[in-house]
């Protein structure tokens, strides 16, 4: 099961975090900063997996942004998780049209909406980009009706 998904930039600033099991705020902050420190200390040549505080961390770096997935237990397929991260990035890319860190930052809620369509309670719901983005279209339509909610 996925325990958390993080998007953290090279400076260690969290851009998106989603936890699927409860952690207190202080634990989260500590966890995030430690994980990103570990990820940053690894070179491109090293593998994308870490074991940390009982979590199995799978991370992948896209430009300046680290996508980090923490799972629990032995059962998880690390390579599958890597593939999932890639699908997530592709989906974000499709939605934001060549996504960058700022897109996620300024459209935090939209990134969360997309993530919610893909992961629920730590499990994968959908991996088809079209299916994921369909509700987003509805949201856009509805938002269009009364303008400037998030802007």
């Amino acid at each position, binding site marked *: 099961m996925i325990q958390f998904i993080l998007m953290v930039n090279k400076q260690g600033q969290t851009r998106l975090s*989603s936890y699927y099991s409860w952690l207190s705020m202080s634990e989260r902050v500590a966890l995030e900063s430690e994980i990103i420190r570990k990820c940053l200390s690894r070179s491109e040549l090293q593998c994308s997996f870490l074991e940390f505080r009982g979590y199995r961390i799978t991370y992948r770096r896209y430009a300046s942004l680290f996508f980090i997935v923490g799972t629990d237990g032995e059962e998880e397929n*690390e390579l*599958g998780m890597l593939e999932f991260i890639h699908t997530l990035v592709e989906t974000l890319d499709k939605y934001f049209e060549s996504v960058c860190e700022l897109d996620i930052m300024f459209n*935090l809620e939209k990134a969360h909406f997309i993530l*919610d369509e893909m992961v629920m309670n730590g*499990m994968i*719901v959908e991996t088809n980009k079209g*299916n994921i983005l369909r*509700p987003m279209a509805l949201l856009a339509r509805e938002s269009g009706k009364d303008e400037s909610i998030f802007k």
Partner: protein
Amino acid sequence: MSIKLRDLIRSVRSCKTASEERSVISRESAMIRTAIREENDQFRHRNVAKLLFMHMLGYPTHFGQLECLKLIASPHFPEKRIGYLGLMLLLSEEADVLMLATNSLKNDLGHSNQYIVGLALCTIGNLSTPDMSRDLCTSVDKHLRSGSPYIRKKAALAMCRCLEKCPDMIEDFTERIIGLVKDRTHGVLITSTQLMCKVIEIDPQAGRAAFTRLVPSLVRLLRNLLSMGYSPEHDVSGISDPFLQVSLLRLLRLLGKGNEEASEGMNDILAQVATNTETAKNAGNAILYECVNTIMEVESEDGLRVLAINILGRFLLNRDNNIRYVALNTLGKVVLQDSAAVQRHRATIVDCLKDPDISIRTRALDLIFKLVNSSNVEALTAELLNYLVVAQGENKADICTKTLKVVENFSPNDRWRVDTLITLLTISGKDCKDSVLAASIVYISSSSDDLKAYATHKLAKAMRDDDGTQEGLLIVAVWCIGEFGEMLLQPYAHESVSFQPLDAMSIVDSLVVVTKMVRCTQAVKRRALTTFAKLTQRLGHTGDAVITKLKMLVKKHSTSMDLELQVRACEFSNLIEGKAGQGALARMPVVDPKLRQRKNLTRKDSLDIEGIARASTPQQGGGVGGEIDNGGGGGGGGGGDLLDLDDIFGGGGTVSGGGYQVQQQQATVVQQTQGGGQEQKKNEDIDLLSDIFAAPPAPAGTNNGQTNVLDMFGGSGGAVQPPVVPTTQGGNIVDMFAPQPTQGALNTGVVSDLIGGQNGVGESGKDVITAYSKDALTISFECRKMPGKGEAEVTAVFRNGGGNDMTGLNFQVAVPKYIQMEMLPPSSTTVKTGGGGKEVTQKIKVRNGMVGQKKIMMKLKIGYVVGGKRIEDMATANNFPQGY
């Protein structure tokens, strides 16, 4: 009016420092709280969105929880969406607010818009509590049959959460879940397989019983996926829906585990997946990896297992580190099941030790330790040692310990074992733990003489070759040379190995070289010192020159800066000279590791007992003290006897400053005689001190302790008799602070009686003079020198030899100018008739400024009433002994 979300993000971004950021956020938080208070509907969702952002940054956002509830009740989709998002992110399942959301969730579950239903399901799936799960599971169940796959897939995972929270409901829903496998939508399939996995995880028995019959359909699903060819909808780099495939394989694994029949049914498809999956891309490898895991865990055919391990072997050759990592991980898991198959890839695994990625190296190392058996131990240990050479800063100590274990378990012969141990020490003597050194020494000392000679020669050579950095090697070598040094004098040859004999001088010289090295640690030096001492025995027969040199070497250390070295050097010098040395420096008995272990255990036990005893004794003392109303920690020194005495005396004694010194002496005596429990004694001393300075009526136990101690040493009263004085003085102090003259006096009497009434007997450092004796009154001065120059303490003891009590005692003293004097109040103003224990004491502190030139002189003025008659008298006391 609060700012827009974008503006907030922008202003946070532009913050240079963390404190700046905090102030921006707290300002905004305040704004939002105000908006919440004012029920500002218009910006509610914007505020919640801001809270999400602040939450992500790690700031408190609890005040926004109710706003989320208001938003989810909103009819507008965007507001609802934000509300639900806020609910999912800001709330934990513990939050009470969640109960309030149940109603809104119920409403939304019945909404006509599938996306709104989906939102509600998503929220249930992420947050549902046991109560909510019970309330809502029927609606969730209804949606499992919904016409829309969007709702069905979400309902499956919502159900997953409900069953997780209320496992007792599993039975009711298994049939419904089974129905989901017929679905054609990938989203529903992937969620329902995950749901089934979860059910099996929660309740393995019921889950397996219910789902095992699905194996054929699952197999069919997987086969369809394999043969489907290109489907644009779920294609990931040429493979159709790897996520679903992985998920199905996992479910098959759970179902086939321990179930022959089910496993039989999946053999073919597993083989098909294993052979047909495209491995050029990560997605394919993910499937293969899952497939291998499944093959290894279910009861699959042997051929299939070999195939699986070969796939892992192929993974190991892959250039992608991620794939090698999972391969090593999986091999580590399966090595115990199918060792032979994994052994075939040994060379590849060993190669991974050379990988630049430390994660890979660590995995490979773990795996190698698991792979070692008696047939490959030589080859693998060689690899391990090679790795140890290049390993940098990694847990070398750990590797050493593990290698030691390998050597201990699988060593093919003794010689190899000695070789390996020495090589290990040569390579990483400075990193390995003490246990490795100990094990090496124990092993060498317990081996045959032939092997000892070999090991000693080899170690001596290694030591000479070393540059002084491998501390562990040096320690072992130095120890062995000390122990078996005489063996170096003989040549050694075995098969191809041969060592030249060394002469005694060169052995000593090589040791000296080691200790003189800059990097030589104290630990090595200490061992070397012992070795020098031992060598006087081992090499004694080789001539006086060597002995002299060794003695000189030992002696040299007696001026060492290192205290340990210095002490040992002195001890050894004496040992070498004396006769005891022969026995003491003889060869050590062989250490039996098992025996040692057992000893360690028993020692621990006895320590525990001591600890308990130590803890309980002072308590006892304290308890008694309390009884006698002293409150202080009474003297525990005497144990039971002492306690009895306490009862007899009924308390009341005190300790004076002077008494303390004696007390301390006493304590030392007790310490020496009683051996253990020294710590406790120290505490006692401290107690005494605190009593002296804090509570005037100091513990009776202390005083009595003295007598008791004296009693214990039987008849020493006459010679030492310290208790008398302190007690008399003690009485004085009691009087000063508490009206207990009788008791105090009585106390003293009894005490002195007990030890044989040696009142007035001169004690070292105490002189008694009679200052005044007229009518019935006798005043004697007990003089005691104090530490300061010319300082003395004079205790005036008033005795009434007449038949009537003297009352209204008034005692005044005048001294010449060169003397400073301080008088403390008398213990009583009534001098009772009769001797022992009824005296009144008064302390006078004197400082003689001309000590040595002039003695103390005092003019005394005495006044008292006896028989109703006032008596006044004057006298001079100039008979002070010399030195006052």
